[in-house]
């Protein structure tokens, strides 16, 4: 590998050099991409924020789900930009939008998957605990029955002892 090739590879690993205005545009379209993903993949933001709720107390002014979607879209867009450097302004807008939308969707899918995994693990733990509790309950019932039998046996013995005492007295 000659030195020119090595320099090229190193240069491709660096983040893109752009003007500030290009960065602003990039961030804006990436956020739009994240927002689009938020609207399509998740429940409508209007519903999530409760803006259609007549009770003003039930309307939310800050929703971390939407913000997370926007930030994840932006983060994914930056990653794509690092890998696929645009040559024109329009390419930049296109890549930013697609990356924002796609990245947000990918990360949202990951979050959904994690939520399902946690939910399944909790379900398994609960089922296990329920089985253990049922076994314990059955054992307790068995012991309770035995105690009742012993109590009955004692009552019976008392009755016979009493009869025998009467017999001895007569």
């Amino acid at each position, binding site marked *: 590998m000659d030195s020119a090739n090595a320099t090229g590879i190193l240069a491709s690993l660096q983040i893109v050099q752009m003007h500030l205005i290009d960065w602003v545009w990039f961030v804006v379209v990436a956020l739009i991409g994240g927002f689009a993903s938020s609207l399509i993949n998740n429940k409508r933001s209007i519903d999530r924020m409760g803006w259609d709720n007549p009770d003003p107390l039930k309307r939310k002014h800050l929703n971390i789900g939407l913000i997370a979607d926007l930030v994840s879209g932006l983060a994914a867009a930056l990653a794509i930009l690092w890998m696929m450097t645009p040559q024109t302004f329009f390419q930049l807008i296109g890549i930013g939008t697609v990356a924002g939308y796609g990245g947000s969707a990918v990360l949202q899918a990951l979050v959904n998957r994690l939520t399902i995994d946690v939910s399944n693990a909790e379900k398994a733990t609960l089922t296990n605990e329920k089985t253990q509790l049922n076994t314990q309950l059955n054992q307790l019932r068995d012991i309770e029955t035995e105690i009742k039998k012993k109590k*009955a046996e004692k009552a*019976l013995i008392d009755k016979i002892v009493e009869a025998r005492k009467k017999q001895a007295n007569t």
Partner: protein
Amino acid sequence: MIKPDEILKYIKMEPKEAEQFASELNILSENLDIDSEQIKELLQKDPEQLLKQKYQVEIEQSQLKKEFNKKMFEK
């Protein structure tokens, strides 16, 4: 089912009393789910044996109660 005649074999009492006693024992046997053979065995025992058995039953009952409490609070 315990009959008055069976009681009279082991305990001396008036026939009317035996009838009454048999009826009481049968009610106990029915309500507390005790086998009539077990009652017959108890009738044959003398007072000392009966007291020993009662003591034994009390010990077993106490052990069962301890076991019950232990199981009740174990995780």
